């Protein structure tokens, strides 16, 4: 069975938080790399809490929020297509 992929985010105080990666992809329309991840917690309805961000393979200090509706739409399509 494949091991899960883990994303670690270190904050300015040196505290490291771990997340499980759901998917990662590059969208050629924006030419950006997106990572969709979870902390494996659920909301009150039992749905998995999922987050997304833009990462940079060449720069491990940058981690940007997803901004546009088109990008969110792409991420949701990706998640829905995983079924």
């Amino acid at each position, binding site marked *: 069975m494949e091991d899960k992929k883990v994303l670690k985010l*270190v*904050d300015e105080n040196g505290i490291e938080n771990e997340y499980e990666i759901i998917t990662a992809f590059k969208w050629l*329309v924006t030419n950006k790399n997106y990572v969709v991840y979870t902390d494996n917690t659920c909301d009150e309805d039992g749905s998995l809490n999922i987050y997304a961000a833009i990462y940079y*393979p060449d720069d491990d200090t940058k981690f940007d929020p997803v901004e546009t509706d088109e990008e969110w739409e792409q991420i949701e399509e990706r998640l829905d297509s995983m079924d």
Partner: protein
Amino acid sequence: MDGNNVSIISDLISQVEKINAQDLMHFVRPIISIYITHKVINSYVLHKTHKPKNISKVKMPPELTQKYDEININEEFPTKYKESLLKFSKVLIENFPKEYLVNFYNNINELVLKQSHGSSLKEIITNNLATYDEKKNKIVINDCKESVLFHELFHMASSANNKERQVGFTHGIGLPPIGTGINEGYTELLTRRYFKFDEEDQTPSYFFNYDVAKNIESLIGKERMEELYLKSDLMGLINELKKYATEEEIMKFINDNDFVVYNTYKKGKSLTRDIMYRQSLTGIKKFEIRTYIRKIKEQYEKGELEGDISTIIANYIAKVHNGVIYKNKEYLLFTKEDISEIAKEELTSKEKQEEILERSV
């Protein structure tokens, strides 16, 4: 062309002109998929307002930070070796999933190759036909056969190019790096497996390590071992071996392999080194036998074994390479007593211990 056909074509052209290219983009999915989990997600909530804050460092798995996904060889790469490089690339792309080739793609386009003439003092002393420098992503080649170049290219294809100096199963946290013995043996195995192997090309110093690598691969599985190698995952290999050995046994096995590979060509007399060398060889073979017995025993206990357990183990031991020539003398790596000791430790049935002992020697 008759009037009807002209009319049909005109209609077709006018229809095509109405198609909005922007709309078409919706049906084209310009995505490069890098990773998808196998995790089953029944329902999710996507937090769009959540914004990562004050992140000083992002640690992504190396396989998700691939720089390239196609071959685009450096123009300065020597023409004489370009064909070999392309041949190597084709073989890798055809035989391995893209997920295993992140290191390969990250390194190949920036690979430097330098022709040496074997006249430097270091080259004369080390007798190296070629070397791969993972810090510079550079191969120095000493006018050798193509298979030697392929061996170094496998090092390139398995180099994580990081400060831990992970190349294949080597981990360079100390000097010398650990895992070199298994790494060289397995690199040699892959070179022979995927490229035509000429008996004359056999590197004596890797012969033993090649044999060991073959046995370890049969223990954990070909596909898994190839994956771990190309992803430069020594920890992954250790974790696989933990199914059949303790961490202490595994680290000793790795160290023994390293000792062998570093000392095979060492010049000068040293009684201590000679003794340690032979002990390392024996230790390696005992590890192989022990882990094999444990694996077979596990299969037997799960009812997955076809055939008699004693016969299977005895046949295996009989085939294990038991002799080695070191400094023009032949040595036995293990004795009847060694096998007896291992059988006693690993198998509870006295009958099976005796059967194995009788049949394997």
